[in-house]
């Protein structure tokens, strides 16, 4: 992902933007390598949350007073910022959800229920997070459709020949992860989208792990839906996005009923609001939506190319350093990867590895990473996963290596 245009970042200064990083865990300085689960939040985002509650808190859209107007304006400004961040054509194509999972469920429960029937096929991949498996299984159960799975090779890359064989006129939805949370693989989504469109399928891209690392342009990709969560992008938890093409969103029925999603309600009949409000019933997560804009501004100020270049450096450094540890096997060796490195240590349970690293102040994730079918395909119960963000350093990777050597000594 390294490009010629990047400029080196001042990592010490960036670290100072993230107050949570400055602490001792179990008596040692925190090393936070669980960024694929959630990133830490910069001061700008924390301040935005406080400022909103201290100065602007009001319910949005229907208020007539100054605070309601300020809150509404900030809320809608976030929608525009996300539109620009994703390269979407219109702000109305941005639907606020509670997260990636919620956004996928929205599509399954509205588009899926409306347009899929018995025998129709949904295509996902072996490396999907459970969030991109279970909503489709539920739809299959309800509507009698069939779930098909694109296989992968041992490196953790999609088998594109097999993908093409699986695509038929029965394929109605292709829902694939942009970047694998467990392996870091970057999938060739543009290729997948074009092939799916050739058989008339719509495509949902799960961008939960991609948005921090990769420039996203939904118009250039031509995906029908793109979903992500703010909390993996330096933003608050409980806030996600569904991007959908206007033509599709307009034909989809609403999912949840309630306030804001209506045009007119009588006891006999309700008419529904236009997009995006049709899909945003109830008081939304106003503060978190507003603070997302600050997260995006933070990313834009650093520059995605610069972030990607630094993360790429960390990944290369970590891959070399970890592979020098005897008995360590990196799981997921795709040619195109983001800064996620999953591994197993011979004869040592991943959970023991995680516990002993934590005791040394190093936060990693262990287990199946909500990808049980992927773990089964790879023939392992789980991995230890270190995932790097812009504020991480090679010194911290050295700490990880030493930490793992300690794990090995203790288990010997």
């Amino acid at each position, binding site marked *: 992902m390294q490009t010629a245009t990047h400029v080196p970042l001042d990592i010490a200064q960036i670290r100072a933007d993230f107050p949570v990083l400055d602490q001792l865990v179990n008596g040692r300085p925190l090393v936070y390598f669980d960024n694929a689960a959630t990133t830490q939040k910069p001061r700008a985002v924390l301040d935005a949350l406080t400022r909103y509650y201290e100065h602007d808190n009001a319910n949005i859209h229907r208020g007539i007073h100054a605070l309601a107007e300020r809150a509404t304006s900030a809320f809608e400004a976030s929608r525009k910022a996300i539109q620009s961040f994703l390269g979407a054509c219109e702000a109305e194509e941005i639907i606020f959800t509670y997260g990636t999972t919620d956004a996928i469920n929205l599509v399954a429960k509205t588009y899926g229920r409306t347009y899929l029937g018995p025998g129709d096929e949904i295509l996902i991949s072996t490396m999907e997070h459970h969030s991109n498996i279970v909503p489709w299984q539920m739809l299959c159960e309800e509507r009698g459709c069939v779930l098909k799975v694109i296989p992968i090779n041992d490196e953790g890359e999609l088998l594109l020949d097999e993908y093409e064989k699986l695509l038929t006129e029965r394929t109605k939805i292709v829902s694939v992860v942009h970047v694998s949370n467990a392996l870091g693989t970057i999938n060739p989504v543009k290729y997948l989208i074009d092939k799916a469109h050739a058989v008339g399928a719509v495509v949902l891209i799960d961008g939960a792990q991609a948005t921090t690392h990769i420039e996203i342009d939904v118009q250039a990709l031509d995906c029908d839906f793109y979903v992500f969560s703010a909390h993996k992008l330096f933003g608050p938890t409980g806030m996600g996005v569904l991007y959908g093409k206007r033509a599709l969103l307009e034909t989809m029925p609403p999912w949840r009923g309630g306030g804001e999603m209506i045009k007119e309600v009588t006891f006999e009949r309700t008419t529904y609001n236009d997009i995006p409000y049709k899909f945003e019933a109830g008081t939304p997560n106003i503060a978190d939506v507003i603070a997302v804009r600050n997260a995006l501004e933070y990313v834009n100020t650093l520059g995605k190319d610069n972030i990607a270049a630094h993360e790429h450096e960390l990944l290369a450094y970590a891959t070399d350093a970890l592979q020098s540890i005897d008995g360590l096997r990196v799981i997921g060796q795709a040619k195109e990867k983001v800064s996620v490195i999953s591994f197993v240590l011979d*004869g*040592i*349970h991943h959970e023991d590895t995680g516990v002993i690293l934590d*005791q040394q102040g190093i936060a990693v994730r262990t287990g199946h990473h909500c990808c049980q079918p992927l773990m089964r395909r790879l023939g392992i119960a789980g991995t230890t996963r270190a995932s790097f963000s812009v504020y991480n350093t090679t010194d911290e990777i050295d700490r990880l290596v030493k930490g793992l050597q300690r794990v090995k000594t203790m*288990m010997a």
Partner: protein
Amino acid sequence: MTINEKQDEIIEEFDLFDDQLDKTQYIIDLGKKLPPLPEHLHVDANLIPGCQSKVWLNSELKADAVHFEADAEPTAQISRGLVSLLIRVLSDQKPDEVANANLYFIDRIGLSNLVTSRRAGGMASMIQRMKSFAKENAL
């Protein structure tokens, strides 16, 4: 030794360590000394639910006492150590004493800090199973 005497003995042993890592090392070493469970007892009925790693517990009544044997998958060394501590405290005790035991040693030796919540959940399941068996066999 009574259950509480055994707990106090364990607390004393752990008091020798200031550092979490040293406590964990001690637990791992205790796990290594856990006698293996015979292969025919590695059955699903003996599996403890809630553990990330596989842990088996076999419960028997022997000479008016409850007798426990357990095992964890070989790679899960911290689990083996935790299991060995529970066996040491609760095995070969009177059923009613096991059923009513207050296992204060877990907090006192900082075990809750040594284990993740998931593993603690597995341990809680194991304690529950040991106590249920004891209760069923209490006079």
